[in-house]
């Protein structure tokens, strides 16, 4: 298929020196396809443990009565979805994959991920969400130009970590990119993030997860926010200064009073995660990607011999 020959720009950005490597794990496409299918299925039905723990904690800590009714309904829904084997939300979102590992046989990989998406749409089933942006014609199988999205993050390891995220439109629509003045500094970053959350109100289905990309160039800024998206809740950035900003932002957001589903309360966000890149001395891009409470992601580690395990 001609689509598979497109250049993956983000691979180039994140790993400019990446070269096809003889040590690379040329895994069988059939294994990749099977793992990817299992991951999509799991992600659509079962929330990751870190998300379930965060929702439970939110329910216990929320003091607003209305907010508590919403968190109770969310927890009941999560349990019912697992018991009945049904997608946790009817908007099963847009499928995106993240691959952490060395260079790989990209063409085969992309084909396998595409086939897995088509199969999952039919068998789970997922709602067919992917449409042409101009004609609005639905492909009916959740694939299309550049979809499912694939991001390669270089890591020098023999195994590959494959992550899938399913992201609904309600929260994605509330995302934003700011080009703030560098002189505004950290306060400017805080203002951008908190105002995005406050003006979104109940629309992105809070409690949300706020994933922020800081610095870079505009494309990289938002890609960094997406890389923050695949980091489990409750984990802090490896650098103290960034970790501190994550915590300060979480406190600020949870002081706005937006609350669960925007009905008021103290739990507006479950977590804030940041990734950064150096940027031009004259710019300070901030990308804010909002994730609804149904933070659907699943991760597997695939070994060179073709065996694999579910990580979350």
């Amino acid at each position, binding site marked *: 298929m001609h689509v598979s020959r497109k250049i993956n720009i983000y691979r180039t950005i994140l790993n400019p020196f990446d070269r096809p490597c003889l040590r690379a794990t040329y895994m069988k496409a059939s294994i990749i396809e099977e793992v990817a299918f299992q991951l999509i299925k799991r992600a659509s039905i079962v929330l990751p443990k870190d998300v379930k723990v965060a929702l439970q904690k939110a329910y216990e800590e929320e003091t607003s009565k209305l907010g508590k009714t919403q968190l109770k309904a969310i927890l009941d829904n999560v349990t019912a979805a697992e018991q*009945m084997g049904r997608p946790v*939300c*009817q908007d099963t979102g847009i499928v995106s994959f993240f691959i952490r590992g060395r260079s790989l046989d990209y063409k085969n990989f992309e084909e396998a991920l595409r086939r897995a998406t088509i199969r999952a749409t039919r068998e789970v089933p997922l709602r067919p969400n992917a449409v042409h942006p101009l004609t609005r014609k639905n492909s009916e199988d959740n694939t299309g130009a550049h979809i499912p999205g694939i991001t390669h993050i270089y890591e020098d390891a023999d195994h590959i970590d494959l992550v899938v995220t399913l992201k609904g439109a309600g929260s994605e629509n509330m995302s934003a990119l700011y080009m703030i003045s560098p002189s505004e500094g950290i306060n400017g970053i805080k203002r951008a993030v908190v105002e995005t959350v406050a003006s979104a*109100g109940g629309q992105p289905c809070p409690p949300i997860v706020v994933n922020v990309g800081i610095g870079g160039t505009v494309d990289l800024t938002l890609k960094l926010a997406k890389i923050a998206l695949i980091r489990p809740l409750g984990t802090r950035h490896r650098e103290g200064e960034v970790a501190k900003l994550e915590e300060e932002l979480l406190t600020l957001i949870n002081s706005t009073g*937006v609350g669960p589903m925007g009905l008021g309360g103290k739990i507006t966000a479950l977590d804030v995660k940041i990734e950064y890149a150096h940027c031009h001395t004259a710019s300070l891009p901030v990308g804010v990607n909002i994730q609804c409470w149904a933070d659907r992601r699943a991760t597997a580690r695939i070994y060179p011999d073709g065996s694999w395990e579910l990580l979350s």
Partner: protein
Amino acid sequence: MAEYRLATPLREEDVRKLNIEDVVYVSGVIYTARDMAHKRLIELAERGQKPPLEMDGSVIYHAGPVARKLDGEWEIVSAGPTTSSRMNRATPLLLKYYPVRMIVGKGGMSREVAEALKERGAVYCHYTGGAAVLAAKCVKRVARVEWLDLGMPEALWVLEVENFGPLIVTMDSRGNSLYEKLELEVRDRLRRLLKW
């Protein structure tokens, strides 16, 4: 924050008693309707024709269900609420032409809708966004489906429900809107939080 259990068709006097922040569970029959069904309902009324459903005391649910046919019977797989603001333009006309008593959705609706609710004697209720399986569990039976030509999500699904909820009254029949009240509070807090 009183709790009510109401049965359809809803009576105007029961609906007018509801205040914002009240919790409601509905049993009986509800109709799903999104953008296209709203358009068709309004067109019918403007042509002086009757819709295929009894609209007196009805409950309109903003949802596009995923349904499947098992042994010739429809089953609702998931039926979470969709974003109501897309129906902001159509709703005042819907309420003008039909005695709808309750609208259920997520995210809230405009000031124009608040005024139309007041005029008609109806309320808007919030249902937890994404709670698709929970909603499907409240559906006991698909009584029938109309206008399937609009596509599965846009069709009018007539659902028999039991204790459909918890629904939170967020816009009452006196023109009050919880969204407007909360937005002012959030803006006020923001001004203090971002003062440096």
